[in-house]
């Protein structure tokens, strides 16, 4: 398996998130028992194994990841691995 395909798979396995190549849906981010009960308060949204943040959002990461019934897209990035390893800082645009 190519490296660019392997990284997102490992990331998804580590996060416990559904990793369909492109998954559009609208009903799996609700308060269905899969979301974290962390009420936040830190600088980030520590989602752990959860799909979304179900507490009262106070920070941008919590707002971005709060549970919702909205349609969403779940797919890994498609940046060639020669350009970016998927984890490190992004290279500056020339």
């Amino acid at each position, binding site marked *: 398996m190519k490296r660019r395909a392997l990284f997102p798979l490992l990331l998804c396995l580590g996060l416990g998130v559904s990793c369909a190549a492109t998954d559009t849906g*609208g009903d799996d981010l609700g308060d269905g028992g899969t979301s974290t009960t962390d009420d936040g308060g830190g600088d980030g949204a520590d989602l752990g194994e959860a799909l979304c943040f179900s507490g009262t*959002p*106070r920070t941008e990461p919590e707002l971005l990841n*709060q549970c*919702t019934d*909205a349609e*969403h897209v779940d*797919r890994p990035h*498609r940046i060639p691995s020669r350009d970016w390893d998927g984890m490190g800082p992004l290279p500056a645009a*020339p």
Partner: protein
Amino acid sequence: MYRGIGIWPGLAVAGLLLVASPRPAPAAGVRCADLPAPIYVAGSSAAGPFLQSLSAPLLADADSAVLVYQHKGSCAAVEAVGRDVDPKRCAQGGCVFGSASFYAEDGSLKTCDLGPDGTHLDLALSDVFAGSCPAFGGGVPKGLLDVLGPVSPLAAVAPRELPEPALLAEEGHFVFGFGESAGVPPWTQNDSIFIRDERSAGQVLLGLHIQVPPGRFKGTATASAEEMTRKLLSGDPAHSIGFLPTSLYDPRRRDLKALAFRAFGQRYAFYPDKKTTSYEKQNVRDGHYPLWGYLHGLARADAMNPDQAATRGARRILDLLTGKTHLGALDPVLLQVQAGLLPQCAMKVRRGSDPEPLSPYEPAEPCGCWFDKMVKMGTTSCSACTNDKPCGGGHCRRGFCEAH
């Protein structure tokens, strides 16, 4: 001179409407200064539909005026008013030149000629804070009044035929920061990656969220949102991408699609709206979709009263932008909603500057229920009301029970 053409009296009586995005007919010797009480506005194309909706009522108003608009990048318009420091002449970098647009009562778009030595702007409209503009990194230029209006979302857009549903922030970084050389499928052709310039609010806003400085975008430059739309529709549908304010994208949904956007630190990509088929901008309003800016009105401040704009024309439009005054029987906030803008009372998040992270927001007089109902194909589960009684502990606002 226009008055001499002979059609002017009829038009003056009938009234002249404002600007918009369709390309206007060439100027035919019509001087903008000869229009009745012209109010000169320039800037964001996102505001075009709202300004257009104001035009007829402004003309019909007892205090009749014609809105004369020049589409410019938001930051270019902020520069035109920010550098206009001498009321007697146009200082370098200040004022607007060339031609501008207005609508005739019959709906036709007309152009008029601005002054040969430039025309002082009453108002600049910008989708970004002045501090986000390349020329004004230090914030609002001295002597300018900056009034926050409704929210204007931005969308990465592609031809409807493109199968790809989303743009991730890190992909945007490579697609717009490196162009085709990045090889991010399906956006692998520079002539199909459409960009604006560093003074366009769309490029400034998108750049902030994909970590590309607005002056370093790669792709094919377009001069306006209108040109970008044309190129998206006529280009290679399998590889094209651009960005538009949703106020201009929404009316083109039959031909274009908004891409869901996943920000850095976000687990999923979201559309501006709850569904690809809805218009309520739920994800903008609740913080799932960060690509938006406030529509700012920037005008020279009155020297004696720096909390108000120097010109009457600017004050009139600013009052309509903030919903402070009605225009006859018309509610300007409803006009904003119908023009694809989001009044702040419908928002649940805010930011204090464009780079600032989102934070929760509780408007003093929320209007989310009303907004949900008023948008195209809108529905709401909120109770209708005429007073606070049926609203439990909440309040009746704009005909619907709000939580507070």
